[in-house]
């Protein structure tokens, strides 16, 4: 034992400079310090160049412009905004628009992807071929081209509002929905006994209103869901104890639906229908063409990738699994939901995350169809009008970085939670 330690005992005594390179104890430290110094030199070099160049151009880097009036209007906005608001608020509108299209896109892409992925495995020859054509068509043509294409199709094939005026086009679904080449107008919920809004952050650039109506509805609805879950748990307990499952579905439905309906009636829910007035349809919720085109194109494009992932995921589950499930007497839909999908999901989710990220990043191409996302506001008009390229681009990158890291963080956390628990 003693002998062993003496073997591995480091050579005590004087430290020579060459040990930094040849002694494996120090070498990694040396390399790292060199790398760090190199990196710092690079950063310093870039910063000093930038400072020098900006000084030559007479520009002082500052973010002061963000609190100056933007001067331009934004059509698609989730909060109130006018052209006298600051660049910061304009960027916030853009950020919300980015998040909106990304969220809508991820949902739609998942649905399209799953459906197409399953259809590609369909025994029906023509259906599986069509799904394959869809996948190949969308995967192999640049997404920018698809965005522009989709926009062009929407513009050229749908009727203009003037066609409604002339009676050449009519509203759909019993005159409640207007599909035009400026966008789709759908009925909007209105409350005659509205509780009003809470104004947050006063008059600052970050101000926003929280609708008390929505808060009330959400509270009642989710409260109902919670009670419904308690009832389910009770039923589960009864089933475990007695083997009989009490019929509770009407209770569970009732505790969600009835209170929600009561609240809605109390608030005086009615619908605001779109109506052709002047140049445009008025009333209702207006989903603009640019949003629809971007949303459609992004979800179709990403859907093609997801379809392949889903197909690969399902095929990765070995045939024995479904046969074993069949031998246990499960029906085919139960086999899918209980045996195949849970296993396929583990294969599907990691690449799915990166596709969600891609979709979010690709939403920056909104500029091509005039959807005012953060690239269109902060990285577009604001950059143009203020001439602050350095500040706007850095901010823009930071915003996207935060979004990306958040998405991948959340999805990785989810992935951990569904991962195979090895015991």
């Amino acid at each position: 034992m003693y002998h062993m330690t003496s073997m591995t005992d480091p050579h005590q005594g004087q430290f020579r400079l060459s040990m930094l390179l040849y002694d494996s104890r120090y070498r990694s430290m040396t390399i790292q310090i060199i790398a760090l110094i190199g990196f710092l030199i690079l950063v310093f070099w870039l910063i000093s160049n930038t400072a020098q160049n900006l000084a030559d151009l007479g520009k002082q880097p500052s973010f002061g412009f963000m609190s100056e009036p933007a001067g331009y209007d934004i059509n698609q906005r989730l909060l109130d905004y006018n052209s006298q608001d600051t660049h910061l608020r304009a960027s916030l509108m853009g950020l919300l628009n980015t998040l909106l299209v990304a969220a809508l896109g991820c949902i739609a892409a998942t649905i399209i992807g799953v459906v197409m992925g399953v259809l590609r495995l369909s025994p029906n020859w023509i259906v599986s071929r069509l799904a394959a054509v869809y996948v190949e068509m969308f995967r192999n043509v640049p997404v920018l081209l698809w965005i522009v294409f989709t926009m062009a199709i929407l513009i050229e094939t749908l009727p203009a509002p003037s066609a409604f005026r002339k009676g050449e086009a009519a509203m759909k679904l019993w005159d409640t929905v207007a599909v035009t080449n400026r966008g789709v107008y759908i009925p909007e919920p209105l409350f005659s006994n509205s509780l009003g809004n809470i104004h947050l952050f006063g008059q600052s650039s970050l101000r926003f209103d929280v609708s008390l109506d929505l808060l009330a509805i959400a509270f009642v609805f989710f409260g109902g869901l919670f009670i419904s879950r308690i009832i389910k748990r009770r039923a589960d307990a009864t089933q475990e104890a007695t083997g009989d499952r009490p019929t509770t579905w009407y209770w569970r439905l009732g505790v969600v639906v009835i209170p929600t309906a009561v609240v809605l009636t109390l608030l005086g829910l009615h619908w605001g229908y779109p109506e052709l007035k002047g140049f445009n349809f008025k009333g209702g919720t207006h989903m603009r063409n640019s949003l629809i085109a971007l949303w459609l194109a992004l979800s179709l494009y990403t859907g093609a990738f997801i379809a392949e992932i889903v197909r690969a995921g399902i095929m990765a589950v070995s045939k024995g699994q479904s046969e074993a499930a069949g031998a246990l007497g499960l029906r085919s839909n139960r086999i899918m939901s209980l045996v195949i999908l849970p296993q396929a999901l583990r294969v599907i989710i990691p690449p799915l995350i990166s596709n969600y990220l891609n979709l979010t990043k690709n939403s920056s191409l909104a500029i091509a169809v005039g959807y005012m996302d953060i690239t269109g506001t902060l990285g577009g008009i604001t950059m143009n009008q203020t001439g602050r390229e350095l500040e706007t681009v850095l901010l823009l990158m930071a915003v996207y970085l935060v979004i990306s890291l958040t998405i991948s963080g959340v999805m990785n956390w989810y992935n951990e939670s569904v991962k195979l628990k090895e015991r």
Partner: protein
Amino acid sequence: MKKSAFLGALTVASIAASAAVAQDASTVDQIKERGKLNCGVTTGLVGFAAPDANGQWNGFDVGVCRAVAAAVLGDANAVEFVPTTGKTRFTALASGEIDMLARNTTWTFSRDVDLKFEFVGVNYYDGQGFMVAKDLGATSAKELDGATVCIQTGTTTELNLADFFRANDMSYEPVPIETNAEAQQQYLAGACDVYTTDASGLAATRATFEDPSAHVLLPEIISKEPLGPLVRHGDNNWGDVVRWTLNALVSAEELGVTSANIGELSASAGDNPEINRLLGTEGSLGEMLGLDAGWAKRAIMAGGNYGELFAKNIGEDTPIALARGLNAQWTDGGLLYSPPFR
């Protein structure tokens, strides 16, 4: 693979390194040394700048670039056209990637002062107008309350538009669009009621419609848009060269010097001393600019005088059919007024 790719990376890097040029010399010297003028233009705007099937650029703004190249280098074709977007044009100029920008850019206070550029003059007096379909029945921009308006982004137009509608207490729905071609497509399909941009652009766009008579330009011009070439701050001599080349084109028209008669007029000094000074048969204006005596002659011969350039690219005989209007000589009631060559 790995090794070969690495080699490639370094080859490119070395080419990149050798492409880096120091920027100490004056702009004129740099251009002469390079043998080419780098001129920023649009990525394509009917009548003002567009490449043909052979990659040759044509148009009204392009004509200015060629005139400057002819004046400095003696060759109207010694121009490298750098297509720029609304977003990239100013950085391209500020960073020295282009020597001048001739891309229907509006001369504004903040661009001149804050962005540190020098507008050398105005080659087209424009203003923001509105185009609507005739069957919409609108006769004034004041009737456009609630309309959907197509605008090109990255320009002053969106600011003007916001101001106009706010001043008249009207609402509108802006549809921001990147390029003129897409705006045209949306407008024709009825996705917007109104298309607004510089009046010249509207006329040019309307000219290419299947049925131009079905669309009208509304009488309101809601902004002043003096469009002109610009250069960086800091090299006044170069600014002078571009400014006086433009003035030479304007003066030439005023004095009746055209590409047809310039050979004759420049052969020897004639009766009109200003023509003589302009064409270098008298005085030493060229030397003062740091060029030779024939600089203005070459500039005018490159594409003709201002009037010829106008007529050839956007004038009434072209499909774009723009009237001279404000862009007529001051002697004809327009705003073109070149300082004297003296």
